[in-house]
């Protein structure tokens, strides 16, 4: 089964581990088919959970062992490794501590891996997709037939991509005992890895890959045990009511989130704990609607503790202040997006930059009076495209987001605007002199159009392809950072102005802005910031 074993592993793998405490070399993948075919979540899940717990503990223990031993004992990695098999290895003398706070450690595999024809057929005949979402969407015209038509092609693509990833792992000395193993360690960032990331992480690997590349292990090892502590103690706080109201309204179209008559799904319980713990840990944010979508999606791919830390990483590093009490980050980032549109899709600005009464918003007022189209784009930042695009497209964006950071949101945002502007509907809506009515219809179109983008390769191809694409892959993080800083400074002044305090630009500020010119700049974006500044 493990024909790819490589002797170099003996040296490299165990020594690379800087996170022995929390990270195992490999975690075993369990087939979720058993879960999938039954409607009763409890009975189906319990054994899998136990397996996983045991598996995790064993893997953790194995980390301490010589890697050679691992390679000699392939049964441990069998994808359907049953409890008996695991227990038969009791000579490993592992400390299986299953009783303490087991609810937090419990992990169910929710994702159906697309690694063979049987699984593909299962998905094709099911009303649900590989993540448990209903194929039929309430929000768009996508039907199960439509979905299947796409998925027949896309599943083949997934099989191909998986092979590419397996090969990438091998060339990086990260051999997997078999194709069903889910790695917890990934190759260091490189041009090659980036390319593969953009083409999609295998769905069942996603949780681990996101966590790895987003720096989850660093967070986890720095705050070892903290989540457990908060989740156990901070069961209720001032945000509990609001959180409670959103639990069932997070993914009502996902079977793992759907409440049965009597039993509250495990997923809802996890979502409650993660959101409550987050509100407790980040009182400057508390609970903000849309965090439920982010936490919910994370929980499909990783355990509670990891989902929690990913939320922390997201709100600290990737989209700071977006969920804060005044949503200042939403205003800032949308200001940045508007300036990006103005710069990179300039021909669209006269259309998108209008207020509801059809007047173009004056250049110097863009940041204080965001155009109404900003109502469409606010969920792009707050929910990171969850519910904005079909799920696979959203997940493919998340693959890149956790690897490349916040510039991804702006790159995709520009792509969505550009794509929509190339449709007939858009052309029609904007061909006549726009009245308030047309402006509102345009708003509606911009909100519904992305929901129809079932094929992620179309969106990402347009965004990143050097030939035949829009080239938004060149928008750099430095540009975004500079622009964010600019917008947030202007808004700060604006707020100060409202309070009648001084708003004069200091020499120091001007100096900082001028220095920004040195940043490499493909499109002249920084120049435009300067123009706006100095004009």
């Amino acid at each position, binding site marked *: 089964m493990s024909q790819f074993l490589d002797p170099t592993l003996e040296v490299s793998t165990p020594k690379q581990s800087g996170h022995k405490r929390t990270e195992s070399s490999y975690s075993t993948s369990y087939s979720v088919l058993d879960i999938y075919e039954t409607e009763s979540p409890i009975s189906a899940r319990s054994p899998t959970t136990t397996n996983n717990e045991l598996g995790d503990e064993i893997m953790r223990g194995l980390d301490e062992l010589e890697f050679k031993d691992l390679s000699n004992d392939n049964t441990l990695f069998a994808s359907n490794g049953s409890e008996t098999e695991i227990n038969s290895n009791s000579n490993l003398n592992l400390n299986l501590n299953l009783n303490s706070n087991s609810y937090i450690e419990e992990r169910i595999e929710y994702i159906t891996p697309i690694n063979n024809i049987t699984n593909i057929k299962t998905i094709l005949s099911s009303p649900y997709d590989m993540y448990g979402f209903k194929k039929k969407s309430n929000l768009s015209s996508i039907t199960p037939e439509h979905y299947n038509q796409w998925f027949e092609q896309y599943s083949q693509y997934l099989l191909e991509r998986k092979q590419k990833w397996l090969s990438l792992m091998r060339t990086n000395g990260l051999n997997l005992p078999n194709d069903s193993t889910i790695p917890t360690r990934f190759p260091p960032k490189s041009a090659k890895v980036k390319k593969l990331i953009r083409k999609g992480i295998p769905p069942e690997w996603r949780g681990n890959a996101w966590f790895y590349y987003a720096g989850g292990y660093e967070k986890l090892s720095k705050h070892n045990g903290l989540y457990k502590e908060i989740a156990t103690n901070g069961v209720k706080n001032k945000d509990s009511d609001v959180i409670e109201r959103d639990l069932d309204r997070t993914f009502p179209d996902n079977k793992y989130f759907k409440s049965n008559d009597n039993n509250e799904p495990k997923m809802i319980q996890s979502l409650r704990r993660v959101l409550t713990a987050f509100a407790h840990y980040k009182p400057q944010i508390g609970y903000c609607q849309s965090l439920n979508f982010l936490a919910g999606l994370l929980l499909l791919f990783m355990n509670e503790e990891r989902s929690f830390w990913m939320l922390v990483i997201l709100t600290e590093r990737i989209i700071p202040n977006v969920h804060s009490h005044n949503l200042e980050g939403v205003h800032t980032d949308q200001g940045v997006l508007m300036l990006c549109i103005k710069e990179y899709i300039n021909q669209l600005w006269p259309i998108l930059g209008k207020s509801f009464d059809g007047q173009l918003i004056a250049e110097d007022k863009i940041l204080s*009076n965001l155009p109404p189209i900003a109502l469409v784009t606010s969920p792009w930042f707050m929910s990171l495209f969850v519910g904005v695009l079909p799920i696979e497209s959203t997940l493919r964006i998340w693959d890149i987001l956790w690897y490349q950071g916040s510039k991804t949101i702006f790159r995709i945002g520009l792509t969505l605007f550009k794509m929509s502007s190339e449709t007939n509907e858009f052309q029609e809506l904007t061909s006549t002199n726009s*009245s308030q009515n047309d402006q509102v219809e345009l708003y509606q179109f911009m909100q519904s159009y992305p929901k129809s983008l079932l094929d992620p390769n179309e969106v990402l191809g347009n965004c990143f392809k050097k030939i035949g694409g829009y080239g938004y892959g060149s928008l750099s993080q430095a540009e975004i950072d500079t622009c964010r800083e600019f917008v947030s400074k202007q808004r700060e002044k604006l707020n100060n102005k409202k309070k009648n305090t001084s708003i004069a630009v200091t020499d120091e500020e001007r100096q900082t802005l001028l220095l920004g010119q040195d940043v490499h700049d493909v499109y002249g974006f920084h120049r435009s910031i300067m123009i706006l500044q100095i004009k």
Partner: protein
Amino acid sequence: MSGRKKTLLKVIILGDSGVGKTSLMQQFVNNKFSHQYKATIGADFLTKEITIDNNKQVSLQIWDTAGQERFQSLGVAFYRGADCCVLCYDVTNEKSLNNLTSWKDEFLVQSNVTNPQDFPFIIIGNKIDVDDSKKIPSLQKKLQNITNNQLGGLNYPVFETSAKEGINVEAAFEVIAKMALQQEELNDANGHDVSDDYNDAINIHLESEYSGCAC
């Protein structure tokens, strides 16, 4: 200057998170109720053509919004030009009833309407289908305290509805449409143009700050 069609009436639905704003809108426009609605982020709207007073065709554009307080900071753009504002509470949630006043105040601040004193508001108490035991104790008295209080100023028509069962939803929106039409006609008579005051709330001239710079 304004290209607004006379028959387009803009209605804004406000209220705490989870009171049923999306459900009310969906029930009225599409005659359906679902447990599948997700929490609303940002804003959403639906349009419905209706006939009022037997012969008047109007197009109701209904805006549904996120209910969590902090989302109000995103609301400026679409509050403007509203013809009627619906204040919603949940008959099982006392806090949502008590918050009606602040929703009204917030709307008036953000929408910049010309006639705050007589701008048409309507109050909807949703979820009357739920068991009486779960409802706010002595609801009618509390409601009266809020609506009759001259200082609080919520002396508006009240409808009790069930978006789930479709009770009273149609009736409420008919009144909403009539009130909105009246407001619209009033605005037209006054020659009010929305864009006139558009920039008053926040008026920043970046260039003025750099007037000394020659580049």
